[in-house]
Every structure is written in C-alpha cells, then in structure tokens.
C-alpha cells in the first residue's frame, strides 16, 4: 500500500476496492479509513478525483460498513 501511494498516480477504484477488502479480512478499520485519506491526498489540487472515487466505491463502502473520513468529521480539525 505504501508502494502504491509512492507512485505518481491516484489508484483506480478497483485497486482501492481490493485494498479495502484486504483491510476487512485483516479486521483493520483504521487502515481502511487511512487508505481513503491517503488517496484523497494523492489527488492533490485536483479536487474532483476524490468525490468520483468515493462515488465508485460507494457500494463497497456500504457493504463493508466503512465510513469516509468526511462522515467521521476527520477532514477538519
């Protein structure tokens, strides 16, 4: 996952989906939220990428019960 974030790209929805499912297998909710935060950070100034990604991932998020950082109020402090 760290290697993926090291690349100069925003991961596709499919890739993030697999990563979130891996977190579910490992019973690690915190990492799932961290991955979503990291992917948002990777988009940098292109603010339209992250909402699109969340839209694509919405089925998985509801299935696994993962909240986005925005839903938890983590994008502000």
């Amino acid at each position, binding site marked *: 996952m760290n290697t993926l974030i090291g690349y100069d790209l925003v991961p596709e929805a499919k890739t993030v989906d697999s990563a979130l499912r891996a977190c579910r297998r490992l019973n690690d909710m915190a990492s799932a939220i961290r991955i979503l935060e990291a992917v948002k*950070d990777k988009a940098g100034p292109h603010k339209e990428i992250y909402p699109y990604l969340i839209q694509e991932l919405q089925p998985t998020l509801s299935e696994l019960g993962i909240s986005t950082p925005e839903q938890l109020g983590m994008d502000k402090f």
Partner: protein
Amino acid sequence: MLRLTAGRVGSLVARRATVALTTSSARMASHGHEVSEAVDMSKPMYWDRREIPLPDKRYKDILTPADKSLKEKEKGPWGQLSNEEKLTLYRLSFCQTYPEMKQSSSEWKTVVAGVLYCLGLTGLVIIWQTAYVSPPAPRTFDAEWQAKQVKRMLDMRVSPIEGFAAKWDYEKGQWK
C-alpha cells in the same frame, strides 16, 4: 520530527564511531547524562507521513481493556460500530489524521523575525564600526577633490560618445 532526526543522527554517529561492540543505547547509558533516549531503529517504527499511510506499527502499543474490547468488536461487521468507535479505532492506530499532518505551522514567522533581528544587529555593529573603528577617509573623497576630478575627466573627454563626457554640454558648460 526534529527529535527523531536528532536521535537518528546521534545513533548513526555513535555506530560509526565505535567498533560495534556496544549498542548505541548501552553507550548512552554508560555516559549517564545524554539528552534524549536512543530510539531503537531495528524495531518497526511509527511515522506520520503523507507518503507512508500505513506505518510499520500501530501508534498505540498499550491498549486499555476498553480498547481491547473495541478491537474485538472490530472483528465483526463494521456497520455495527458507531462513529465515535470508528474514530477511537483510528486514533489507536494513528496519531494524526492527514489534515493534521498537512497543517502548516507559523514557523516561517519566527524564521523571518530571526533573520531580520540578526540583520539589525549586524547593522548596529557596522554603524558603530564606521563611527569608532574605521580610519578617516582618504583625501580623494573630499568634495573639492571630487569636483577637480570630474573637471579633469571632462577635460580628458572620458567616454565621449555614450558615457561620461557625452552627458556634458561643452558649449554651454553644464550637464545636459
């Protein structure tokens, strides 16, 4: 962050200096008065870094019984966890969120203030120096000497086409 870097540099220097018979923490202990504890770099460490979302280990090592029961609940369906519980789980594993990591500090103001202060001190030193330390200026700096020098340059026609003497109107005897 700075503390970690200092520890890293300290242990690197220690390792390079000895013949590797003692560990850096043992050397620190034998000195008895070193400033910070040596971080054991051979074990997995935690960092908050934008490019490393999932560090080598969880942030909180020691879990209270409440945390442990939450971890047990995490093994079940995540839909059952409330938002506060999800946040607690996050804070167990991670120290800062991404926005907290990315927040800018006001350090630059201190830096600029420090720079200006040092420049100011230097300015004061120079003022004092010109008043008390420097010898008197040579006679070639006197206004009378300078006037004679300019007259001589004009008489010599120094740079008559585009430079010095070109700006002097020789008929009228004044600057153009």
